[in-house]
């Protein structure tokens, strides 16, 4: 590497361009020089002015290329299949109430428990791939094995992506520019195609449609949520998605979860909403800092879920009518294109309204 010219480095590792850009190094005209020769072209004054650390920059370039090589390698792997949690103990040192919990990809698990009961700690244990070295004494396995430490320390390969109610877009870009930026940071090859896929998916989730030229900061709450979920499902490298509640407004929650499941994510969802909790295959009950027990969603609960979803769709329909200036009442018609909705609403609405 030390002897390679900048031109040949770029030819072999095109992504090195990003390193030069982010470090504000204009290497144009130095393609036939080595990186060291380029750095030596700075005068002493420039070195001080721009706070240039020559040795550091050289070492970092090598590190950066290594990092990106592994990162690209990881992308090619098929991703993780399962996550296993082995029990530790709660705040009072009582053992946790389960033997072993394995969550496979495309599975949804909900987490319930009062604020401060230890939901954040559980997430932190997963993110850190705890090895009986955190306050809960839990152990996390990936694909049934002790995980690679890369999950702890690499900034580009995070195990967990998070979606929460408080999240906002703070960047001042249009949806297109925003997705482009994200796709570039993930070194996606087909940027246009990926953007198209995300906007299409997001619009399926959002109550109100939006296009690629909308600034992300002017999206409504529901639209923002829809875009964040579609982007996380399609573009994020993290195999596990943790959701902290999805508000029941302006977004089709069932479709949102289906999208994540279709993209083969492992979904953990902290919620106090019965509809969301019952969509999950199992739910983890957190108490006093530990997992108190794990409940499987029963057939009766599934029946209840069907009812809850009908109510949700009904309210969603009312919201839509309200938005378009219609009279609300028991005859409110829902112009939802979804077959599922129409089928379910048939004959049920009057019961709910009465």
């Amino acid at each position, binding site marked *: 590497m030390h002897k390679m010219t900048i031109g040949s480095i770029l030819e072999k590792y095109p992504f090195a361009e990003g390193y030069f850009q982010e470090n504000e190094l204009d290497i144009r005209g130095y393609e036939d020089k080595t990186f060291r020769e380029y750095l030596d072209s700075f005068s002493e004054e420039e070195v001080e002015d721009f706070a240039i650390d020559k040795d550091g920059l050289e070492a970092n370039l090598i*590190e950066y290329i*290594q990092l990106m090589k592994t990162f690209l390698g990881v992308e090619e792997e098929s991703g993780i299949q399962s996550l296993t949690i082995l029990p530790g103990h709660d705040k009072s040192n009582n053992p946790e109430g389960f033997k072993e919990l394995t969550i496979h990809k495309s599975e949804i698990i909900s987490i319930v428990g009062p604020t401060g009961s230890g939901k954040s700690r559980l997430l932190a244990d997963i*993110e850190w791939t705890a090895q009986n070295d955190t306050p809960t004494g839990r152990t996390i396995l990936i694909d049934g094995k002790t995980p690679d430490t890369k999950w702890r320390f690499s*900034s580009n390969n995070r195990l967990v992506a998070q979606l*929460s109610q408080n999240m*906002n877009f703070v960047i001042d870009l249009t949806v297109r520019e925003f*997705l482009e930026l994200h796709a570039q*940071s993930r070194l996606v090859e087909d940027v246009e195609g990926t953007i198209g896929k995300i906007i299409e998916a997001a619009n399926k989730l959002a109550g109100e449609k939006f296009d690629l030229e909308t600034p992300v900061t002017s999206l409504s709450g529901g639209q923002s949520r829809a875009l964040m979920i579609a982007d996380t499902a399609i573009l994020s490298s993290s195999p596990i998605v943790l959701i902290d509640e999805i508000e029941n407004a302006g977004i089709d929650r069932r479709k949102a979860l289906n999208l994540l499941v279709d993209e083969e994510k492992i979904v953990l969802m902290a919620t106090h909403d019965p509809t969301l909790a019952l969509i999950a295959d199992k739910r983890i009950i957190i108490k006093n800092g530990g997992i108190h027990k794990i409940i499987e969603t029963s057939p009766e609960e599934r029946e209840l879920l069907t009812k809850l979803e009908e109510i949700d769709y009904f309210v969603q329909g009312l919201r839509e009518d309200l938005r378009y200036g219609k009279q609300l009442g028991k005859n409110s018609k829902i112009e939802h294109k979804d077959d599922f909705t129409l089928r379910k609403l048939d004959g049920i609405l009057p019961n709910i309204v009465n």
Partner: protein
Amino acid sequence: MNLVVFSGPPSSGKTSIILKTIDALKQRNISVGVVKFDCLYTDDDVLYEKAGVPVKKGLSGALCPDHFFASNIEEVVQWGKGLNLDMLITESAGLCNRCSPYIKDIKGVCVIDNLSGINTPKKIGPMLKAADIVVITKGDIVSQAEREVFASKVSSVNPRAITMHINGLTGQGAYELSSLLYDEENQIESVQGRELRFPMPSALCSYCLGETRIGEAYQMGNVRKMDLGDDYA
């Protein structure tokens, strides 16, 4: 005693992160003291006191805070030794993003936040680029995509650092940071003769020395002019 140097832009969450990390260290019976460096004002010392953490504050006033840090760090270390601390943490705000207080072979942690904008990693000099650990905060209020982009920008200016996401409000991730900070092997008695990781600007101009009048006649020493191009008459 271990010495750990925390640095980061103002309001990035340094104090919250340090407090949550100290909580985790205390659980392991590691005693920690803090020295807070700032420029004109700080009341962070009150927060540390409230948490029962021995604390001293140093205001640099008219001096560059990083210069002030370098002139005082040895005394600060002796203060910590006098209290028999297991770990001394120094916290200083990076104000102009040009310098860093990191010392060779002493753990340096940079705290920056997701809200500061995705070009911030580019704008920060050695404070970010020479850190061993980069802590990214306020991840709970920006989108997953922005977090990923921000982290990738950090890693392209400092690929050697361990990058961690910590929530300063809930403390999620602070325990993990604490496990990386304390090092039984790296005990120090003094920092006498140790070197800064990166030199600070060397020059002085007349304004450094108290000149207030504007105009060429009053400018001495290291003065540089902007290049305003050809339109400048």
